[in-house]
């Protein structure tokens, strides 16, 4: 009877390898996956006036603000995805 008890204690609780669970890496928003454009230059083939400079500056600042939006969106995406991924730990 003692042998039986010993065998029970020794053998019960043998473990097997757990199945790993992985979370899919999140997708990034498509609008953030575009490459940054170069800034606009003044045309070389026409007479440049002050209005052309202001127009080009306006176009360039548009590019800047678009990139600013995307840059901040990347930060937001990272923070939120990290917060979600941290919940699995």
């Amino acid at each position: 009877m003692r042998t039986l008890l010993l065998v029970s204690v020794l053998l019960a609780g043998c473990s097997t390898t757990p199945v790993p669970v992985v979370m899919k890496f999140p997708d990034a928003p498509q609008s953030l996956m575009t490459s940054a454009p170069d800034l606009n230059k003044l045309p070389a083939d026409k007479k440049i006036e002050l209005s052309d400079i202001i127009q080009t500056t306006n176009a360039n600042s548009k590019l800047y603000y678009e990139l600013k939006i995307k840059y901040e969106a990347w930060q937001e995406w990272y923070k939120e995805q990290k917060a979600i991924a941290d919940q699995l730990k």
Partner: protein
Amino acid sequence: MWYLQFMYSMIPDTWIELATYAILATGVTFYILSKLIVWIPFIKNYKIPLELIGVILYGIGAFYAGGYGVEKMWRDRVEEVQAKVRELEGRQAEVVVRIETKVVTKIKKVEVIKEVIKQEIIEKEKLINANCDVSPDAIEMFNKSVTNPEQLESTGEQK
């Protein structure tokens, strides 16, 4: 070894549970029978083999019962984590859609404002350009200032 674990994981929980307890019960029964048959004259010689088989079966049963307990615990845990992962993946996708919408809306706003400014400049073009000549140096400097510094470096124009 991995294929044994794989095969083991393919067997339904209830089958494993049933087989485990059946082996365990048979072992206990054989062991008890081995103690009882000493009073039966014709089969009392089988006491030792019956006891041995009983102990072996009990050992195997105990091994699998213990293993099954842990396996069940892990399977439950994996199921729980998988459910959590599914929920979190759904939330991750929601974040992507929300940010995408936000970016597109904000960029549209910028485009509208910049278009308004562009039209204003066109309207006031004559006024802006009156009495103002832009020197070629200013144009060159402007273009240089908006050129990517890496590009300037590669062409040796950074001076």
